């Protein structure tokens, strides 16, 4: 990953340049994704853009286009191509002129159109279990009632705006399945000239120009990245000339530039706002600065215009070590892979050091045109998640209590004594309705402690938790520093006398305390209570991120039965109670 990843909001490459990049016969390595378009106009032109942005993001897309203007038929026909494949993403692409052919004249009403659309959306949602993207419509560029406005002249423009509002409300109410792709915002960003290709609209029903198709593709790739666990999780920031203007060690609290009312302090103030927005969406924020720790905290604690306070940060390295080592050390403290990080610094030397030593980190240098700085993190889709769970909103807090745990770790002579002092307890039970969203999110985001790395959508989790053949078990962890929330998932299905462990994963922030053993024991115990005794089959599917669990099943007492090309199968036929109990972990009912 390089600094140019997702950088341009409008891609400057020529069509030929993009095709060259897409066609280049580098091995098609990456995560496969399937995208089905249901559309009422010619949207095939988007394919090179999708291929391009997918390739940049490490995804290998397979794109299918439904028949031209057969959206209704394909949704209603249970034999249609839509139901033969199970795509990761269905894109409903609806162009207003085709959707409402009489709309230009008849006085149509947004609420009536929306109720038809809602039926259609309900049908797609009911018949599939993937994420569905839907666009807003483009309001007319020119007034259709001249310069006069009176209540008796129906205004197409106002009605389109109302319809878009209704679409937004629908998607908000159904956000577990639907994603909004806001065409209205695209045309506002680009303007009519850069968006509309009237030539090919009249010749081939293809209404969009390159700039529009590019934004459309980027937006869809954001969704795919979130779905496939490719989102970044932590933002690491330098301090001087990054969080404020000037150098705190030299300029002092009064001298640094962070005043919200004057240039350039107001730019840094605005940048801090964008960080807090990310924090509130669940992104972890950390500091990595060559400074005296006390000077930095003095700004955070005492500067009247520092919106960022000490409690926003999940970790910090304020010292004189090199930044690559500090970032690696933050990664191990937070238990995150190096590819989870984005780093911002004003110093080109630091930026290139980190980029060279840790190429998987996305590095941004504070732009020379400082007025562009506040948008830096907003325009780059690095931290996308499909839904923000209540866990996300308090994530930094959860990690901070983990930090306290690590501080204590130093005080104990042996790990065992330390673990015993934590007053650990776990609660394990079958998934409840209000946990489904978090479970899906964990399957999408967990890379390291994940034995099979199977990704599931929220609706798929819902479906399997309702099936009698399947079970979804969740884990909650508590200790004297606080609750860690829902941090582990086991998904199993029964097949005769066997129980197959389809997925077993835990959030990395609770690792290293033997909880995984207690969890598997408790989960299998619960399953055998409802399913009867089973011979348990488990598997390990290696990825380049989950080596740490390569021997998990063996250490949990499972026996290796088969080593295949891509995965290893294990079996456990003893009594579950023979799995060793962990003395220092209490089981809550």
């Amino acid at each position, binding site marked *: 990953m390089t600094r140019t990843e997702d950088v341009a909001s409008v891609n400057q490459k*020529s*069509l*030929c340049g993009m*095709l*060259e990049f897409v*066609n280049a016969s580098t091995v098609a390595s990456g995560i496969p994704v399937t995208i089905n378009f249901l559309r009422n106009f*010619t949207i*095939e*032109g988007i394919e*090179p853009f999708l291929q391009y942005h997918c390739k940049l993001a490490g995804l290998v897309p397979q794109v299918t286009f439904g028949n031209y203007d057969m959206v209704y038929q394909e949704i209603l026909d249970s034999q249609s191509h839509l139901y033969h494949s199970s795509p990761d993403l269905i894109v409903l692409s609806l162009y207003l002129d085709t959707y409402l052919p009489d709309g230009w004249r008849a006085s149509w009403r947004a609420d009536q159109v929306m109720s038809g659309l809602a039926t259609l959306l309900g049908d797609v949602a009911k018949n599939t279990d993937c994420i569905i993207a839907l666009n807003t419509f483009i309001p007319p560029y020119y007034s259709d009632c001249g310069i006069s406005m009176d209540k008796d002249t129906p205004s197409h423009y106002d009605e389109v705006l109302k319809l878009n509002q209704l679409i937004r409300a629908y998607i908000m109410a159904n956000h577990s399945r639907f994603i909004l792709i806001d065409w209205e915002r695209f045309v506002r960003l680009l303007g009519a000239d850069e968006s509309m290709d009237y*030539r*090919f609209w009249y*010749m*081939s029903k*293809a209404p969009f120009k*390159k700039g529009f198709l590019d934004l459309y593709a980027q937006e869809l790739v954001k969704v795919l990245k979130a779905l496939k666990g490719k989102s970044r999780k932590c933002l690491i920031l330098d301090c001087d000339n990054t969080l404020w203007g000037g150098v705190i060690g030299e300029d002092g609290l009064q001298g640094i530039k962070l005043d919200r009312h004057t240039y350039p302090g107001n730019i840094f103030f605005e940048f801090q706002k964008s960080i807090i927005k990310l924090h509130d969406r669940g992104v972890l924020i950390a500091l990595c600065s060559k400074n005296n720790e006390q000077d930095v905290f003095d700004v955070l604690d005492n500067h009247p215009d520092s919106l960022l306070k000490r409690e926003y940060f999940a970790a910090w390295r304020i010292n004189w070590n090199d930044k690559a080592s500090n970032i690696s050390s933050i990664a191990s403290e937070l238990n995150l892979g190096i590819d989870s990080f984005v780093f911002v610094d004003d110093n080109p030397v630091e930026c290139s050091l980190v980029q060279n030593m840790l190429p998987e980190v996305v590095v941004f240098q504070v732009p020379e045109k400082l007025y562009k700085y506040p948008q830096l993190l907003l325009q780059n889709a690095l931290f996308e998640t499909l839904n923000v769970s209540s866990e996300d909103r308090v994530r930094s807090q959860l990690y901070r209590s983990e930090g306290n745990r690590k501080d204590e770790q130093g005080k104990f002579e042996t790990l065992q004594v330390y673990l015993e002092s934590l007053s650990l307890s776990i609660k394990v039970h079958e998934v409840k309705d209000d946990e489904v969203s978090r479970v899906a999110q964990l399957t999408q985001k967990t890379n390291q402690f994940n034995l099979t790395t199977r990704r599931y959508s929220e609706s798929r989790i819902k479906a399997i938790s309702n099936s009698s053949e399947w079970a979804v078990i969740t884990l909650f962890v508590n200790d004297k520093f606080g609750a860690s929330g829902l941090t582990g998932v086991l998904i199993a299905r029964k097949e005769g006398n066997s129980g197959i462990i389809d997925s077993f994963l835990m959030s990395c922030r609770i690792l290293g305390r033997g909880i995984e053993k207690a969890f598997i024991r408790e989960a299998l115990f619960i399953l055998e209570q409802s399913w009867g005794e089973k011979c348990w089959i488990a598997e390990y599917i290696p990825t380049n991120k989950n080596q740490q669990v390569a021997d998990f099943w063996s250490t949990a007492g499972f026996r290796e039965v088969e080593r295949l090309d891509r995965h290893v199968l294990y079996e456990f036929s003893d009594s579950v109670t023979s799995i060793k109990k962990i003395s220092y972990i209490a089981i809550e009912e």
Partner: protein
Amino acid sequence: MQCHEKKLKEVLSKVFKVGLEMIDEDASPDTVENWDSLRHMNLVLALEEEFAIEFTDDQVVEILSYKLIKIVLQEHGIEFIQ
């Protein structure tokens, strides 16, 4: 403007995702499998971008063979050299 003919062939080869050797004087939708109406749009856009020209509406529909593309580009003042 002078231009190597290879540049033109490369545009077609990239747009239609075929080897450069497939693009000869007789190339047309009959000889190049991927030259369908959808990719024809990409061809038009790519040629306009690479040669910094804009086709007339009639030319967009007309340029359905390698020879015709060359003629039309020459009308736009592009002179091909080998």
